[in-house]
């Protein structure tokens, strides 16, 4: 069974802290790993990762994939209250053509 597991499920930090969110996967035929941010509405796309070791960066957010150890991390530096959201990790499975999500990490940034 294809599985995507995120940790921690919930995280509370102070503004300015750096956080690392984890996503591990066990799937039959990996094609890509995706990160999303979800506030009160539909998820918005952050990153797509297909190759190991290549960091993707957007402002204070960055992400990297390790295809040997089957995991990815999402880093957020100098956190702001606007970063408070649920962060979702998903894996696109080749062949079956389906997109499987993890449970999400609820991140709360306190001022």
């Amino acid at each position, binding site marked *: 069974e294809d599985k995507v597991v995120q940790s921690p499920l919930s995280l509370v930090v102070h503004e300015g802290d750096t956080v690392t969110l984890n996503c591990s996967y066990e799937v039959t035929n990996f094609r890509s790993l995706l990160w999303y941010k979800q506030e009160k509405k539909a998820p918005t796309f952050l990153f797509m990762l297909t190759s190991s070791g290549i960091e993707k960066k957007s402002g204070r957010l960055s992400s990297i994939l390790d295809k040997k150890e089957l995991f990815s991390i999402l880093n957020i530096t100098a956190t702001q209250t606007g970063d408070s959201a649920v962060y979702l990790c998903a894996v696109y499975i080749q062949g079956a053509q*389906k997109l499987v999500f993890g449970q999400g990490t609820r991140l709360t940034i306190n001022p």
Partner: protein
Amino acid sequence: DVKVTQSSRYLVKRTGEKVFLECVQDMDHENMFWYRQDPGLGLRLIYFSYDVKMKEKGDIPEGYSVSREKKERFSLILESASTNQTSMYLCASTSPGTGQTEAFFGQGTRLTVV
């Protein structure tokens, strides 16, 4: 801009009713998905489709069916709504043939079954 549109933002239905949730995308995407989202459980895949008239069961298909008669439209049907189907329903589409495996989402439908 890719647009995925779900027909309703909020729905309230009675137990036993047949419920239709509609999703339309305007980017000629091959793949479409229906998920439900419940607190602490993330997005769980109900059904997906990679072509017109094709459908595949996801992880939790029981109590649901789908229809894809046209490429742009993917409908989720609750044959006989029950209270445990109260949830947020999200539709998404992708185009893996063009390398776009990132899903584009509709705004979600919050369904309450009473």
